[in-house]
């Protein structure tokens, strides 16, 4: 199918290397669940996958898409243009035909889509999704089940592993009772067996992923499991999209590990409950999306001042205010780094993909414990909801079992030593000196006594900031993809990782000397980064936020301030959609033009 691009060379028997399938319908039609199953199928094979979806923010539904990019080699993005469009309605057809590549295939419900446009060599195949499904199920279930019918159709079209796919259906629907499962299987079989001479057949080249231990998941799930693997047993939060599924997972899973996750009355309480458990000796988590992070800001300042460890997850969405609650944006970076009052240094990290959600959480937990300060993980709606396939984490290697340290603290114990890192003594620990420590948000001396002494405030401010200075010196520099120096460096953070790398390759195909890099440690930035950036003539910081009054996005603003490097430019957008590779390529092109 994909015949253009480096990754799409056909193998000898003309097998596919990758295919992008876009399902367009209404959210209540279950296209997410079909897309999810296709995504999960990849997890059971050596194939790669990346999904992308848009969801309406209203419960009753509305137009929605789910896009699946399946590939035999590395899949870095969800696909700019689709090879196959599945249109459930006229509006789906009208709005998404443009996303189909020239000569692509449009499968449409011939009972719902009335007008088709003959253009760009697009191959139209009308299939009566609705009546074929009704026939298969027995007439009662009406529109329900046509998603599974379509899944069967796709399965036969692409010669996907039928046995594994039906296994996934069984797992998903088996719990809902025999009738439901039987209907699903009937719908699937009907789609699989549907005869139309028009329907092309394709076959994927064997997947290249080396490890057979592959799983597929979305980012929120991996963040939630990462928290448990990093020894977090307590936490609290208030529901908000797209954060909620993490708290639902923790509420469900933590009791197995002896922990408790509290649904708090609001975000102010949530961060306080988590801080309470952290103070009590158990590193804890709270999380939210942008509006909730704002509500936690005062307590974050406290945690910096009192030097309490805390993990804060922020799954970013379109803002400000209620904004675009189900769309993607990266506009909380400055809030994450600076959002509070006073000087309140904390650590900010961002995962680069779904797999990284797991590992970055372990790293965050280690940093929080070590530096006794809040660590914010900035995820975003795209990473949170999309499905990717990757190797199952090795838990023998990546596991931190929590410990409650109630050992007696010696005579020299000071909660806030100026010559070392703070390591609080949780309640219950005995003090050899018989003086018991206070944890406080008032400026304090080394012993935790409130102190307004000017010299002391300066020293304590230095102490809190220098933790980050120490950390910066220890952080690895980000890897550079392609040339170590040159004309163009594309720099991304968070969910732009895949599109940025793919854009780098496209620029090189055009003859430009381009490299790419990705920043996971956003605050503090690794020291030495300025020197690294200086090796390139133009640095394009790609981010999904506004370029602001001065023309630079949020990370670009910080990088410019930190480096005084006038070669740093911004590629910004705020349309609520994930970056397409072509948008980045075009952005660079038009800058250089």
């Amino acid at each position: 199918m994909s015949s253009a691009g480096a990754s799409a060379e056909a193998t000898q028997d003309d097998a596919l290397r990758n295919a992008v399938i876009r399902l367009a319908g209404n959210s209540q039609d279950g296209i997410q669940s079909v897309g999810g199953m296709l995504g999960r199928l990849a997890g059971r094979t050596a194939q790669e996958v990346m999904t992308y979806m848009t969801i309406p923010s209203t419960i009753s539904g509305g137009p929605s898409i789910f896009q699946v990019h399946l590939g035999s080699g590395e899949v870095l993005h969800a696909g700019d243009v689709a090879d196959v469009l599945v249109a459930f309605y006229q509006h789906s057809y009208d709005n998404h035909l443009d996303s189909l590549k020239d000569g692509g295939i449009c499968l449409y419900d011939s009972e719902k889509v009335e007008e088709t446009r003959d253009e760009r060599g697009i191959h139209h195949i009308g299939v009566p999704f609705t009546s074929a499904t009704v026939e298969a199920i027995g007439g009662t279930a009406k529109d329900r089940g046509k998603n599974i019918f379509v899944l069967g159709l796709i399965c036969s079209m692409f010669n996907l592993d039928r046995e594994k796919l039906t296994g996934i259906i069984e797992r998903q629907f088996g719990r809902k009772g025999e009738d439901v499962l039987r209907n699903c299987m009937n719908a699937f079989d009907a789609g699989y067996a549907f005869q139309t001479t028009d329907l092309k057949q394709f076959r994927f080249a064997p997947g290249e992923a080396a490890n057979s231990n592959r799983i597929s998941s979305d980012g929120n799930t991996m963040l939630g499991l990462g928290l448990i693997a990093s020894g977090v047993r307590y936490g609290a939060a208030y529901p908000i999209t797209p954060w909620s599924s993490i708290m639902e997972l923790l509420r469900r899973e933590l009791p197995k590990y002896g922990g408790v996750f509290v649904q708090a009355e609001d975000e102010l309480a949530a961060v306080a409950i988590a801080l309470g458990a952290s103070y009590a000796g158990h590193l804890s988590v709270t999380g939210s999306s942008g509006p909730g992070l704002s509500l936690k800001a005062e307590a974050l300042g406290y945690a910096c001042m009192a030097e309490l460890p805390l993990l804060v997850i922020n799954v970013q969405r379109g803002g400000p205010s209620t904004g675009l609650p189900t769309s993607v944006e990266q506009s909380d970076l400055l809030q994450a780094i600076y959002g509070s009052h006073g000087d309140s240094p904390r650590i900010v990290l961002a995962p680069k993909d779904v797999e990284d959600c797991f590992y970055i959480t372990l790293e965050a937990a280690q940093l929080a414990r070590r530096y006794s300060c809040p660590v914010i993980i900035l995820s975003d709606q795209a990473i949170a909801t999309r499905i990717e396939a990757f190797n199952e984490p090795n838990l023998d290697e990546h596991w931190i079992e929590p410990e409650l340290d109630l050992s007696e603290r010696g005579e020299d114990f000071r909660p806030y030593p100026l010559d070392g890192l703070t390591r609080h003594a949780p309640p219950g620990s005995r003090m050899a000196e018989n003086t018991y420590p206070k944890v406080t948000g008032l400026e304090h001396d080394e012993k935790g006594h409130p102190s307004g002494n000017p010299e002391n405030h300066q020293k304590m401010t230095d102490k809190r900031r220098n933790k980050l200075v120490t950390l910066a010196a220890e952080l690895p520099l980000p890897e550079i993809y392609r040339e170590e120096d040159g004309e163009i460096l594309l720099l991304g953070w968070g969910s732009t990782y895949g599109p940025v790398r793919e854009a780098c390759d496209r620029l090189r195909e055009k003859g430009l000397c381009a490299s790419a890099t990705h920043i996971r440690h956003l605050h503090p930035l690794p020291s030495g980064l300025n020197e690294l950036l200086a090796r390139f003539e133009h640095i394009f910081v790609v981010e999904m936020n506004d370029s602001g009054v001065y023309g630079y996005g949020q990370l670009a603003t910080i990088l410019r301030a930190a480096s005084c490097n006038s070669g740093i430019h911004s590629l910004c957008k705020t349309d609520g959609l994930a970056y397409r590779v072509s948008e980045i390529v075009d952005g660079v092109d038009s800058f250089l033009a």
Partner: protein
Amino acid sequence: MSDTQSAQPEEKLTKKQLKADHPTWCPACGDFAVLASFFNVIQKLGLTQTDFVCVAGIGCSSRFPYFVNSHGIHFIHGRALPLATGISLSRPDQHVFVFGGDGDGFSIGGNHLNHAARKNINLTYIIMDNFVYGLTKNQTSPTTPIGRRSKTDPNGAIDRPINPMMQLLGSGATFIGRSHATHVKHMNEIFERAVNHKGFSVVEVLSECTMFYPGAFDSAIPRKGGEFDLVDEEQHDLTSINEAFKLAQLEFPGKFGVFYQDERPSKNELEQNWINDVQSRTGDLSPQDLMRQNFAAMQ
């Protein structure tokens, strides 16, 4: 509250051992007496410094933890209860004491009070109600009576004050008491009962701000011509919320004593039951194997 320390072999703490920094309160501030009474109760119950923790928000009264030589945490304005919730749920071995004022508890932290109470979090909360904002120097508080002049109500307060007892009764707290800082013996008794209660226990103590609202509670001080009128527990059914509401509606200064006490499982117990239940089914698996089950479902 927690039942793990009954067998402590250690000796009871002396007052001297319990005292920390000298209180920064104004002379004769009612909070001194609350502190003294708290020491009495700790001594009487034989608690030691590894058994309990003091938590507070912001306000004069919220300075409390600095003056007790125990583990303590001074948090932000209004959020002491959720912080204490996190301690209580994660550390069942600890007695958690929360201290604060009327502004901290009924204004900025009002919603937290409702939720910590309805969840019946295992802790003891002592509210030093002085009908004024002390620390910020004499603004109207949510309990300031109508007509009382303050810096924010130069013509006298016009907003109807909340009735703390009504509020607490409505919140779902399972132990609700009321006392007065000039009656130390009474405080001792009520505090002790509060500490021994399982679940969310709360005591409102009328504690005079001698600096900004002197004489506010004289009407309950016999030597100043007032009457200290106790709840008659022979007549009063402690488990009747209706009777408690009647007591709460008496004209100021009203009655003192325990208004309401009932048994309801605490969130601490309910969460632990869930944990025990789940673990009885998965108990043989190592934590890593538990998570491998999640991964298996993603294959």
